[in-house]
């Protein structure tokens, strides 16, 4: 959606994977603009806003997430947005067009905050980001978040650290004024991107067990402990194949797979969701940023003995024109030599390395395996020793 707001994807139709009409053609009834008030399990009915009741034999919860808000006065003012649903993207885009928007404030430095910095800067709008920490994107270690921060600053995003937001008021020069512990700042729009949490209101009402993550507990078939009740996507947990723990990583690719597994089982098939390894990526301006598996803290919490090493190398073969620097950090278990996680940042080649290493994590490979993986070598794409090999061998020596 940030790419739609930033005019990279121009047609909104291209964002809609499947319209209600298309679903109806296949025999699936779709009711949009319809809220579920309550699930009456005794009666086996879903109660809709307005009082209508819908009987079910099988119930699926795909309730997604809810954006977190800072909880400050004025956060519901016109011009203050969150970006969660497509309707939000439409509203933001309309606002940017209709209100002469010269300056935007983004609050929060996660994925959405990063992608929106790029989208808004690319529209020529002055951008200021307020973050409660000192570095952006805490999924990445400081060595890499510093590179992300440099990239933001290089593209004239003003990054305000250790910021506490206090209130949103009407502005003088711009529409809105944000009051913070570092003084006041004005802007024509404010995007709240401080995080999301699983939307589990209905699940709680039904008394379904939630995991430590606050998301709905499911088994490998996407079933909740309640007979005939499934959960899929951002509102439920996933099995992390590296840590062996149940986690909540709200990403659309995971939701697609879990949905297909639940659908197969509901349709009379037999399928399990094999879990995730925590692969994720984003792009900010000219930088690819990606990670997979565990960081050292998670690894230690899961009972491993993590060791790590950051290697800087080449995205493509060193002598090739257009070569850029690539940073790759590997985390491995001192006890078993197994790869536990990886992070990468660079102008090119970061995501492809992380995808490869995700497959390695999936298969439970050791650093010895990774150090001699057969990869698709050609100078425009990597060295004859790829940074993956170099980093794995270097970390192996440190075990």
């Amino acid at each position, binding site marked *: 959606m940030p790419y739609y707001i930033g005019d990279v994807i121009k047609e909104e139709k291209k964002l809609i994977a499947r319209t209600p009409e298309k679903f109806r053609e296949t*025999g699936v009834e*779709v009711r*949009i603009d319809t809220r579920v008030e309550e699930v009456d399990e005794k009666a086996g009915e879903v109660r809709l806003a307005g009082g209508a009741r819908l009987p079910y034999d099988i*119930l699926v919860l795909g309730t997604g997430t809810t954006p977190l808000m800072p909880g400050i006065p004025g956060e519901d003012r016109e011009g203050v947005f969150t970006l969660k649903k497509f309707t939000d993207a439409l509203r933001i885009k309309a606002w940017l067009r209709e209100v002469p928007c010269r300056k935007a404030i983004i609050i929060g430095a996660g994925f959405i905050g990063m992608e929106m910095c790029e989208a808004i800067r690319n529209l020529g709008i002055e951008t200021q980001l307020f973050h409660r920490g000192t570095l952006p994107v805490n999924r990445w270690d400081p060595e890499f978040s510093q590179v992300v921060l440099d990239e933001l600053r290089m593209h004239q995003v003003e990054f305000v650290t250790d910021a506490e937001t206090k209130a949103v008021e009407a502005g003088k020069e711009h529409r809105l004024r944000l009051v913070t512990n570092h003084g006041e700042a004005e802007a024509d729009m404010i995007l709240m991107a401080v995080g999301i949490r699983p939307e589990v209101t209905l699940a709680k009402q039904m008394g379904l067990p939630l995991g430590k993550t606050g998301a709905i507990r499911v088994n490998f078939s996407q079933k909740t402990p309640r007979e005939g009740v499934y959960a899929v996507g951002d509102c439920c947990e996933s099995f992390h194949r590296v840590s062996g723990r149940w986690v909540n990583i709200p990403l*659309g690719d995971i939701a697609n797979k879990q*949905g297909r597994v639940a659908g197969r089982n*509901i*349709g009379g098939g037999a399928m399990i969701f094999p879990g995730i390894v925590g692969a994720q990526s984003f792009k900010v301006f000219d930088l690819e940023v990606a990670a997979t598996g565990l960081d050292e803290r998670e690894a230690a919490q899961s009972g491993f003995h993590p060791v790590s090493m950051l290697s800087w190398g080449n995205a493509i073969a060193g002598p090739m024109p257009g070569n850029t620097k690539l940073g790759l950090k590997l985390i491995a278990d001192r006890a078993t030599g197994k790869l536990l996680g990886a992070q990468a940042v660079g102008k090119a080649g970061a995501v492809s390395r992380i995808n490869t290493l995700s497959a390695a994590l999936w298969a439970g490979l050791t650093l010895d395996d990774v150090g001699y993986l057969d990869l698709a070598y050609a100078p425009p794409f990597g060295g004859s020793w790829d940074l993956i090999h170099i980093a794995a061998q270097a970390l192996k020596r440190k075990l």
Partner: protein
Amino acid sequence: MGKRVVIIGAGAGGASVAAEAQRGAPSLSITMIEQRAQVSVAA
């Protein structure tokens, strides 16, 4: 009539359930409920 399936939420997860369940068992009576005005968006 086949079993009645009610899916709450038409995002990536819910929409995938609907499509796959329908493919496997066309006799199912599937209803997907979405509180917003859009379904199944490629975010």
